[in-house]
């Protein structure tokens, strides 16, 4: 696409632009033209206005309450004798026996001592975007409301097999959003960024896919206000590879019932590490500036308030720090984990930013390799989880790795034992690690009721979903024999009775591996697969 579009050429693209159906170079060309053309800007507004009107109209459609009865009506009309037909070979599943050349996330590559691989950190960052703040206005327990969790009909074919879900953010118990991307390197297909919308008790893909984009995070501020961030690749966009140049970062704003490309401070130059939201305001963590490799530059922080993003000047304490997780308990109360990227040993702190003042809580626990996620219930109550053990050789995975939990009681952060990992020795044989369990994400279901999720790399099928549940003052492991081969990555609890988790299934045969996305739903006291 010519970067210098005429008005006529630009207008020919504006409908597709407004529907997010253009590829990145065309988007760039259109936006370059729009920046200096008022007439075409008015044209875009006209298209978006119509799109908005369509969304309004669709929202007025009543809920479908007859799904089951209708299916029975259809089923009774099917002929008794099975219908035979011969399908052209073109229709045969092209993926039988075919697998991508490389697995999707998570890719475990170890960059330095500690448990902080690039992909793992991305996963942790994704996992850390606090949605709790959105729900906090009613309190997590209060959020349970009087509406019982619905029992959605599992959707077993919602995601293509190479789909990854990065993050879920709920607006309410009845509505939420998920973002992610689809990749298919074996077929040389470009990445496709995707939004999914949860309403009427069901997840559905929302809008068109975004070519060559991987969406990494989402945080909703309200029913018609939310932010999503991701990466757009400038090359052919087939591989999700953040270690090579040739990509820029993109942000989307949900408003007027549509996700629109949005400009943020220094947009395109920074990796947007995470968004934490609380009602009317949001916090944005910005990772290393380009073209530096990841996690070798200090993080930056932006605050969204009154409809605009403003940079927060970080104190000297953050000079060599990268922020790996954020949580908010309400407006003007941000908590975060800061990790030193220059040190081989963990020199971290948890910090609180409140009333323009920073409070630091140094974390010096010896076996701790890295903290990954924290979640705050209130300014005096929270949990953080990370990995501890034997760091192993440089650029090699740790030889021992086990979850390490910290609790904040209003004054200090203190280690709390969890079953299976109490009193583990820190020295283990490289060939015989004690455990490879990792916990990636935490979420409060109610005061005194917390879920932590992750995976165990020693599962029978290469990995096994792992969850720990904190109730009655203690952590307990919840076993999932039915989820052998699965992994949890994020968890977002609605109440003590309902919650959501994302993850992946390790699947494939004949040496081919792929990771289809999975959404898990917690209801009636148990986790089950809601969509995959």
């Amino acid at each position, binding site marked *: 696409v010519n970067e210098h579009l005429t008005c006529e050429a630009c207008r020919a693209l504006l409908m597709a632009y407004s529907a997010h159906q253009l590829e990145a170079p065309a988007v760039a060309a259109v936006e370059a033209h729009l920046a200096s053309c008022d*007439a075409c800007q008015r044209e875009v507004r006209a298209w978006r206005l*119509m799109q908005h009107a369509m969304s309004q109209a*669709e929202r007025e459609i009543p809920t479908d309450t007859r799904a089951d009865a209708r299916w029975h009506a259809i089923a009774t009309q099917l002929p008794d004798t099975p219908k035979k037909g011969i399908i052209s070979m073109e229709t045969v599943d092209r993926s039988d026996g075919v697998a991508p050349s490389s697995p999707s996330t998570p890719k475990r590559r170890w960059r330095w001592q500690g448990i902080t691989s690039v992909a793992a950190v991305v996963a942790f960052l994704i996992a850390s975007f606090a949605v709790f703040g959105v729900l906090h206005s009613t309190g997590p327990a209060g959020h349970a409301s009087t509406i019982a969790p619905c029992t959605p009909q599992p959707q077993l074919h919602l995601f293509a097999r190479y789909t990854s879900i990065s993050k879920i953010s709920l607006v309410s118990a009845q509505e939420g959003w998920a973002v992610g991307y689809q990749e298919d390197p074996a077929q040389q297909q470009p990445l496709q960024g995707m939004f999914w919308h949860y309403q009427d008790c069901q997840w559905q893909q929302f809008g068109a896919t975004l070519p060559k984009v991987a969406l990494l995070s989402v945080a909703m501020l309200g029913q018609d206000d939310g932010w999503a961030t991701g990466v757009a690749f400038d090359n052919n966009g087939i591989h999700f590879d953040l270690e090579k140049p040739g990509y820029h970062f993109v942000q989307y704003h949900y408003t007027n019932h549509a996700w629109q490309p949005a400009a943020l401070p220094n947009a395109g130059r920074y990796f947007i590490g995470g968004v934490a939201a609380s009602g009317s305001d949001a916090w944005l963590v910005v990772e290393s500036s380009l073209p530096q490799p990841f996690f070798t530059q200090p993080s930056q922080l932006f605050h969204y308030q009154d409809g605009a993003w403003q940079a927060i000047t970080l104190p000297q304490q953050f000079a060599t720090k990268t922020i790996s997780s954020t949580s908010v308990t309400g407006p003007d109360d941000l908590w975060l984990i800061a990790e030193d990227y220059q040190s081989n040993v963990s020199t971290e702190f948890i910090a609180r930013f409140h009333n323009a003042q920073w409070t630091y809580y140094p974390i010096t626990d010896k076996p701790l390799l890295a903290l990954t996620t924290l979640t705050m219930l209130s300014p005096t109550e929270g949990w953080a989880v990370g990995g501890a053990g034997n760091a192993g050789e440089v650029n090699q995975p740790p030889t021992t790795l086990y979850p390490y939990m910290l609790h904040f009681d209003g004054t200090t952060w203190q280690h709390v034992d969890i079953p299976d990992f109490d009193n583990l020795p820190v020295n283990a044989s490289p060939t015989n690690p004690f455990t490879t369990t990792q916990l990636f994400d935490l979420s409060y279901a109610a005061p005194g009721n917390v879920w932590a999720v992750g995976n165990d790399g020693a599962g029978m099928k290469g990995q096994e979903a792992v969850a720990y549940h904190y109730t009655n003052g203690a952590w307990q492991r919840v076993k999932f024999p039915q989820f052998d081969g699965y992994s949890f990555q994020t968890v977002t609890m609605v109440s003590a009775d309902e919650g959501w988790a994302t993850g992946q299934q390790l699947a494939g045969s004949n040496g081919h591996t792929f990771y289809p996305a999975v959404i898990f739903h917690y209801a009636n006291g148990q986790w089950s697969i809601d969509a995959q």
Partner: protein
Amino acid sequence: MLADERTLIQQVAHGEAAALQTLYTLYRPRLFRYFGLHFRDDLDAVDDLLQETFLAIWRAAASFRGQAQVSTWIFQIAHNQLAHALHKRHGRTTWLSDLEEHTLPVGATLEESVMAQLTVTDALERLSPKQREMLSLLYHHGFSIEETAQILEIPVGTVKSRLHSARNAFIRALRSEEEAHS
């Protein structure tokens, strides 16, 4: 290992009701909204359309040749059902006619009208069912202009010209709604 949608169509063609049920689970929400846009006050009509669409999928599965995406093919069937239903309800004239094509310059006051949501939806109501169907495929169901052309079985150029026509009609309707409100 999960079957993909093409495999499901293949299974439906071989008479497997369970595969049709899976397709129903997958496509019911989208098709409900697709039909509901036109019959939101008549859910019995939406029920009938959904039933007819899935029975048509059952009958036509063996003819699926795989040149199109499964979603495009299913919406093509749904479009035919919808066209038939709208034709029966409104008669040929209303269903087939677009609003008058008219190029309208977009004025600076447009931005102000963004917030007038009632006016906006009223303006949308004045588009023809066919125009709304096309916009729904593009905006709600994520089909490209090319896929929309396939579903509606019309040339790509016709989709584009109808799109501009719909947009102009929408802006014109919006203007008149604004004038009526002011």
